[in-house]
């Protein structure tokens, strides 16, 4: 009887203590990514009148943020500059879904590409970003993106521009 009471006491004292798993302190996480990219652009003026050329090389500086209680939803924006044969600057707000397995994160996402100077070029972008963590702070980043531009002063009349681009760079997790 005394042994049973001692055992019950022991059990209740153990269950009263909190589990020794690490607790997650809610926090907003951030990262800054610097990538460079290019690819292929196709201009179409209807019918068989299409032409493919390389996309001007661009540099993309992105800020991303997510809450650690919902790390799958990532949003942020980029400043993007074309530096190949012309100089232009644009703003790219984006929204991504992140799925992490081990050190690798896959982030399919959608964005709006808005080049605003010295000409306007506007359209949606669908992307897939791969983030490979090299440590607690740095990761390698690769991305593929499909853009369609149909608005802006740089788009020829009665035409649309399709671009399939790739980018490589590094990310710093703050």
């Amino acid at each position, binding site marked *: 009887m005394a042994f049973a009471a001692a055992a019950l006491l022991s059990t209740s004292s153990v269950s009263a203590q909190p589990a020794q798993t690490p607790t997650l302190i809610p926090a907003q996480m951030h990262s800054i990514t610097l990538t460079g990219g290019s690819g292929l652009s196709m201009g179409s003026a209807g019918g068989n009148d299409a*032409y493919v*050329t390389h996309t001007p090389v661009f540099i993309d500086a992105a800020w991303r943020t997510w809450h650690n209680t919902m790390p799958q939803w990532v949003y942020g924006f980029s400043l993007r500059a074309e530096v190949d044969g012309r100089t232009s600057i644009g703003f790219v707000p984006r929204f991504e879904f992140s799925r992490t397995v081990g050190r690798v994160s896959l982030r399919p996402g959608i964005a709006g590409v808005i080049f605003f100077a010295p000409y306007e070029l506007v359209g949606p972008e669908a992307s897939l970003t791969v983030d490979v963590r090299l440590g607690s702070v740095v990761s390698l980043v690769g991305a593929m993106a499909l853009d369609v531009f149909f608005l802006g002063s740089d788009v020829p009349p009665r035409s649309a521009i399709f671009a399939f681009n790739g980018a490589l760079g590094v990310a710093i997790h703050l």
Partner: protein
Amino acid sequence: MERSVSRSTSSLRGLVAFALVAALGAGCDEGRCVRHSDCVSPLICLATNCVPVPTDADADAAVDATADTGAADVARDTASDAAGDAASDIVVDASADASADAAGDAAKDVSDAAKDVTDASDADLDAAD
């Protein structure tokens, strides 16, 4: 066997390299474009080709081109007849308005113009003979 696998791998690498170079070099045709900014200023991109900006000068050039054709001679002959008729009308109208001097001058101008056109037509006929 091992050599054939190696050769196959080498061919594949060559193909990939060729595709990459071809893709990167695809933008070397300066006459073609996908965006206005692909063209050298002041050209613009129209139907994937860099072309000059259309202006009023283009319309004048079109008129000049028409004047250089044989159709101008026929038009000139027709114009001489029309100018003669117009001169007669002006003389009649001027008399009715009692502005004889002004009408006379105008009629003289038109008559001179008609004469010039007629002379030109005669010259063309002479040249044809």
